[in-house]
């Protein structure tokens, strides 16, 4: 799944972290799927990102060039938006299908 989706998922499975967030990732399978860059869309998603979870995921998956957080004036910073576009929408991770089955 896209890292954007992983980041926005909150699991209520006990023991998965505070507020049940985030889902654990494994660096077993990482694919890059090129996606057309749309700066407005990326800019709109930035406020929703849970940065701690994103950075942890990026670390687990050995991703490089991942911004550490939103920067001043990010809406107009193409370099920042392109990096976030790549991380959130082009990096695909984990199984192609995730199960939401809760434990117990």
């Amino acid at each position: 799944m896209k890292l954007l989706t992983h980041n926005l998922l909150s699991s209520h499975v006990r023991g998965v972290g505070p507020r049940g967030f985030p889902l654990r990732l494994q660096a077993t399978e990482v694919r890059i799927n090129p996606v057309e860059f749309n700066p407005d869309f990326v800019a709109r998603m930035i406020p929703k990102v849970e940065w701690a979870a994103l950075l942890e995921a990026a670390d687990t998956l050995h991703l490089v060039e991942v911004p550490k957080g939103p920067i001043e004036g990010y809406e107009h910073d193409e370099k920042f938006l392109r990096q976030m576009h790549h991380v959130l929408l082009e990096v695909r991770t984990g199984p192609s299908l995730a199960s939401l089955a809760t434990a117990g």
Partner: protein
Amino acid sequence: MAFRSKRPEHGGPPELFYDKNEARKYVRNSRMIDVQTKMAGRALELLYLPEGQPCYLLDIGCGSGLSGDYLSDEGHYWVGLDISPAMLDAALDRDTEGDLLLGDMGQGIPFKPGSFDGCISISAIQWLCNANKKSDIPAKRLYCFFSSLYSVLVRGARAVLQLYPENSEQLELITTQATKAGFTGGVVVDFPNSAKAKKFYLCLFSGPSTFMPKALNENNEEEARESEFTSESEGRLLPPHRGSTRGSAPSTQRPVPLVLTLVSTDDTR
């Protein structure tokens, strides 16, 4: 709606009904694909998303990804949720763009608040109305679904849920829970006079809209008639309320604007 054969929901839970054989139909049967795709198009139309802007959408009961593909073709990103492993396997085979999740919508949608710009659902939510396990209470599952859906939508976003209600009581059960969860909206009925073509779309709003949907535009009716799906359809308000006889509701020929009002069951109208 004229169901000549038994309704699938009466035979057991969806994850068993939508097995490999059923899933194959959604991949091979061109008529089925055509119907599903048209409904996805109509649902997206009713979402009234701002033009030219890719959105992050939720597809409830995404199945084999037919509706999701339509969303991708329109430039949107989507996450699909379905309870049937066989249907999701078919979606994987078809290499859909969206992210697929295996889960039960009746247990809620586990996303952060304000994640999605909108939601569509094609032919799925009527499955919430049937208890397949002794512990299932349809009203509770419906409320759990609608309240979590409300939460994961951006404030002001819409959900358009095409469904096959078995009868007016079921439709009322559904709309009551949606209202309890905080939604406003109503039901649009396309082709109300055709037993075969009649389609119900539950259109829900989660708070005041942040962008002006076409439904509130006074030119809506004209624009609706020009678009492919609505040129022959007669969108009709179907406010659910107690005490009305609705076995075969009288249908009016005039199209009505798509401004909807959902009344709660406390309303005396």
